[in-house]
């Protein structure tokens, strides 16, 4: 009930147009009711009454009514169409605006498909109801009432007789929609199952072929499709029973009308014209009655959809920017800024980038991931975070740009708690590269300038060069103008990662977070990126999450996380010597002769050769 009220309130923004459409709809209905009356008069007076002159008068009157009805009909459709389309537009925009302000945690819970269906088909269901469903509903009910009144006025006994069927008809119609709707929902669900199966099969087509499971897959799919067939036929059967029944009931009434009305005409108690009018009006009752059933279904769907839409709109924002949030205050000009500060406010654009984690706790639902991590990273330092999967490395770095808020403790940048800062400003200074970077379906250049839309072509190129992406980009047919395919998948994993690195670099951020950012890049390219990054990382606070010792070697300090706590920290050499967790994890490197410093080639080759020589 509440939802229907809120949906109706949406019309409030378009009061005048809505009122106009209702007025026009009633006018249209009223004029429609006039037609049988005029026909009645024509038959009685002009034809039977022997006054053919009146024919022209009545004819013109009818044409006049039809013309006005035309104008009114057009006006109504335009008005209600405009309103409903405007409401659809508003709702969709509002929904997206609200979603954009939700944090990562929200999107961790909501699959894309669910959000999409709400933004597309649910909003459309609401629109269709508001667009014509509502107006029809009201005018049809009014029409039925008006016709009933007219009939009673014409001849109350006959009216009573003919109208007895009406409540019965309504009941059947309502029962019909109540029966049909759950079946239709079932059909929808089964169609969704088929879609899911189809998707899986297409994506995994290679595996299906490899294990020669085509027949099984076909059987599974056929099964699901057959269920759709069964449910659809069930729906059809319901329709096949009720719809003809709903059409039949008025026919009974007509039969009665003809008999008793006919007798009355014969006895002189009723004019023929009146009988014909009665018949016409009775027939005019049929379609509204039928339509009410369909409209009820429309209303039900609109309510269900409305609830889903409001679920999104009503969701409280899970991350707040404080009303008095400040921009990040710098402590002085950082290296790399070219011009002297123009105004005092320029200080805010040059933070140092020191990051402090103070007793940070974080849990995903019930599972604690970080347990009281305290870490101080001075400005410009490069630290590597290592540890087993799930130990909290990514979670920790996610707290810096405030993608998530800690459950306990605090994160500070340059001594300021990130929760006191303006989100946009904070993020301006932090560049993030993830393992599986998302690129948009626009040009490579646009993707690279994503964080700094006004970056010059030279800036874009420079960033791409550092990221070792310039070469392959230039080799593409449209170079930087090449449009990336959806989700960037026409590029290889390594190419996407390099573009993502360029994207982060172009912003010239004070803090850089590289989360397994070169995992898909081959060894040779990676070493080139490493060389370039060494330059870039100077003067920037950098967090590196990696598994390869060569990448880890870029860091001045290594932090080893285990089960949400810092186990060890120190330089690579010191940790290896300490023989703790770090040494355990990377100890095999020694066995394989993997060198992080430039040791002699022969020694390592022999060691490796010995290992390989013993073949399985």
């Amino acid at each position: 009930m509440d939802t229907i009220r809120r949906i109706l309130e949406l019309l409030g923004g378009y009061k005048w147009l809505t009122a106009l459409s209702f007025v026009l709809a009633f006018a249209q209905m009223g004029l429609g009711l006039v037609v049988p009356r005029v026909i009645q008069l024509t038959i009685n007076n002009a034809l039977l009454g022997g006054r053919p002159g009146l024919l022209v008068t009545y004819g013109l009157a009818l044409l006049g009514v039809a013309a006005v009805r035309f104008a009114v009909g057009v006006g109504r459709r335009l008005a209600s169409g405009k309103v409903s389309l405007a409401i659809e537009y508003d709702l969709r925009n509002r929904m997206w605006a609200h979603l954009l302000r939700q944090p990562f945690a929200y999107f961790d819970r909501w699959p894309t498909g669910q959000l999409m269906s709400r933004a597309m088909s649910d909003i459309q269901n609401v629109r269709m109801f508001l667009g014509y469903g509502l107006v029809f509903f009201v005018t049809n009910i009014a029409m039925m009432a008006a016709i009933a009144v007219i009939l009673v006025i014409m001849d109350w006994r006959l009216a009573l007789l003919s109208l007895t069927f009406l409540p019965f008809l309504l009941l059947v119609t309502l029962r019909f929609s109540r029966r049909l709707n759950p079946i239709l929902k079932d059909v929808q669900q089964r169609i969704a199952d088929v879609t899911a199966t189809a998707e899986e099969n297409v994506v995994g087509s290679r595996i299906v072929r490899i294990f020669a499971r085509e027949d099984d897959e076909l059987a599974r799919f056929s099964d699901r499709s057959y269920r759709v067939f069964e449910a659809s036929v069930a729906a059809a059967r319901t329709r096949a029973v009720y719809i003809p029944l709903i059409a039949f009931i008025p026919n009974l009434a007509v039969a009665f009308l003809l008999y008793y009305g006919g007798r009355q005409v014969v006895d002189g108690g009723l004019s023929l014209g009146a009988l014909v009018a009665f018949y016409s009006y009775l027939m005019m009752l049929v379609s509204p009655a039928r339509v009410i059933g369909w409209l009820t279904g429309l209303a039900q769907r609109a309510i269900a959809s409305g609830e889903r839409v409001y679920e999104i709109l009503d969701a409280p924002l899970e991350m707040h920017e404080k009303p008095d949030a400040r921009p990040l205050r710098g402590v002085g000009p950082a290296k790399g800024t070219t011009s002297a500060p123009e105004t005092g406010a320029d200080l805010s654009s040059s933070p140092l980038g020191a990051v402090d984690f103070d007793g940070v706790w974080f849990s995903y639902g019930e599972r604690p991931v970080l347990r009281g991590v305290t870490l101080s990273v001075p400005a410009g330092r490069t630290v590597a975070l290592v540890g087993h999967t799930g130990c909290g490395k990514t979670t920790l770095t996610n707290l810096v740009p405030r993608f998530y808020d800690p459950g306990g403790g605090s994160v500070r940048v340059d001594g300021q708690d990130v929760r006191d800062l303006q989100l946009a400003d904070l993020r301006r200074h932090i560049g993030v590269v993830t393992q599986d970077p998302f690129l948009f379906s626009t040009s490579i250049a646009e993707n690279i300038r994503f964080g700094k839309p006004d970056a010059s072509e030279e800036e874009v190129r420079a960033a791409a060069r550092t990221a070792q992406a310039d070469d392959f980009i230039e080799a593409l047919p449209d170079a930087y103008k090449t449009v990336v395919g959806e989700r960037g998948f026409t590029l290889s994993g390594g190419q996407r990662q390099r573009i993502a690195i360029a994207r982060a670099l172009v912003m010239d951020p004070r803090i850089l977070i590289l989360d397994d950012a070169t995992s898909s890049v081959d060894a040779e390219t990676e070493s080139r990126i490493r060389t370039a990054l060494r330059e870039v990382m100077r003067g920037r606070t950098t967090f590196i999450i990696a598994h390869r010792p060569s990448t880890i070697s870029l860091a001045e300090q290594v932090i080893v996380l285990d089960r949400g706590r810092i186990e060890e920290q120190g330089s690579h050499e010191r940790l290896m010597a300490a023989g703790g967790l770090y040494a355990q994890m990377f100890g095999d490197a020694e066995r394989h002769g993997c060198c992080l410093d430039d040791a002699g080639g022969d020694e390592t080759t022999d060691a490796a050769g010995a290992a390989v020589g013993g073949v399985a």
Partner: protein
Amino acid sequence: MPAASRHTGSTHGVGASFEEMRGWRAFLHLARELKLARLARLAYPYRGRAVSSIVAMIVVTGSTLAVPYLLKVAIDDGIQARDMAVLGRVILAYLAVSLINLGASYLQTYLTSWVGEHVIYDLRRQLFAHLQKLSLDFFSRQKTGWIVSRLTNDVDAIDQLVTDGVTTLVTNSLTFAGAVVLLVVLDWRLALATLSVMPFLIVATLWFRSRSARAYALVRNRIGDVSAHLQESISGVRVLQMFRREHSDYDRLTEVSGAYRDVNYRTVVQSGVFFPFVEFMSTAAVVIVLWYGGHLVGGDALQIGVLVAFIAYLDSFFDPLQQLSQLYNTFQASMAAVQKIYTVLDTAPDMQDAPDAIDLPDAHGEVELRDVSFGYAPDSPVLHAVSLVIPAGRTVALVGATGAGKSTLVKLLARFYDPQAGSVLIDGHDLRAVTQRSLREQLAVVPQEAFLFSGSILDNIRFARPSAGDDEVKRVARIVGVHDFVEGLPDGYETEVQEGGSGLSTGQRQLISLARALLADPRILILDEATSSVDAESERRIERAMEVLFSGRTSVIVAHRLSTVRYADEIVVVDDGRILERGTHAGLIAAEGRYADLYRDWEATGAAL
């Protein structure tokens, strides 16, 4: 009025040329183009029901059309003639006709839907089965979403057409035709008078059809744009937030959404003018009939009952016109869908068993590439006359730079593609001469990305051999090292795997993929190693699993990890589509060739862990 033209620029496609044609010619042209005959042929197995439903439709139409006639008789022969007996009989006839209508309507709706839904089911199956036969080349050329859309959205779009659409088309056409006949029979003079409105209606209908067809196509495009934009933005919302692009994305959405709204409003205007106009014309027709008919009645040249019936039949004349016009748009939407579906169905499966293909006998496992050349595009070869013999039971590692052709080579070995020159042989049998099924039973591939289906871990491993019992699956899982981490999971082996990968780490998924290959126990194993790095622990497990997997069969590995090379009896260096070097690890290192360089690079990055 646009002139009919068969030679409109082909760039406009079927839709545009149709708008410019008229009536039956257009329908026939369309039918041919859209292979409606093929669609109709799908209904052939159910012709009994289909014919019955058409008979039912005829009965329904007939009984509906009978009503105004009965009304005429009631008025003229009953009421006006003051004959209650006749009136009584007519009313009974009326009730009988209504009951017939009821029964026939039931049959019509049920049978049409039954046939229609079954056709949809058959079409879906046909499409799916065909997809299973298509080569992997097809799948790599098309986006997943595009292919799935054929199976779902497009088939659904036809749904309305083959159920309600057919009924509406047949009944309304019959009603219209019947009404015309009855009108002429009742009084041909009035019928002629009524026809005076036809020219206006024809013009209006043509105008509406061509305009609305284009507008609706635009609406479909624009809503597609909105959907695509939202899909991408929602998927990448974190990146939007990371780089502070919320505002510009919001602006973009309002733009795209606004374009859709404006186009949609255009359709509102078009129908907003057309349908009231048709209503106006129908009232105008009534006026004409009243004038002329009234004049005739006045001159005793016509009975009142006839006039009343005539006016009643006008409804049966105009109503179908409106319904058919509305149907037209549904038809348009289904058009596009049918085209797309048949595009897929008409794509020939690239790889079919030769008519005289034999089953590959229990292989020893000797693999040979003989002078093989291949390219994904015919004019850009990836492999150049490659020859390679791998004796049975050997483990061979393929190494080389990205794009050298390693993955392509193994794809040919697995017969995902056929070479353009030369041949691929197993135990001396050319792969093209053996049945694909027998080949698949003896050869397994572990691809780069571990693809798991939705289902339990157990189901996923068992996918390789559905007949394997739980014990056997668990034994394999233990060998591979899957058992260790499965025990730690709350649901154990029954843990549901999500396609999105949530729940299991990359390393764990790779292990499951390896377990699956082991269960298949193939004579020949092809492994395209994953490139993404995993933590040291997972790395170790995967290594051990591979060690087990390679023993006792011919294994060909595309190696990315330094450690994998350890397990190979032999290493083959591929460069630029050719085999550069070949030998044991020690031998190649000593030779100081390409392999030696590669190896040194690997060491430097510590790719071995």
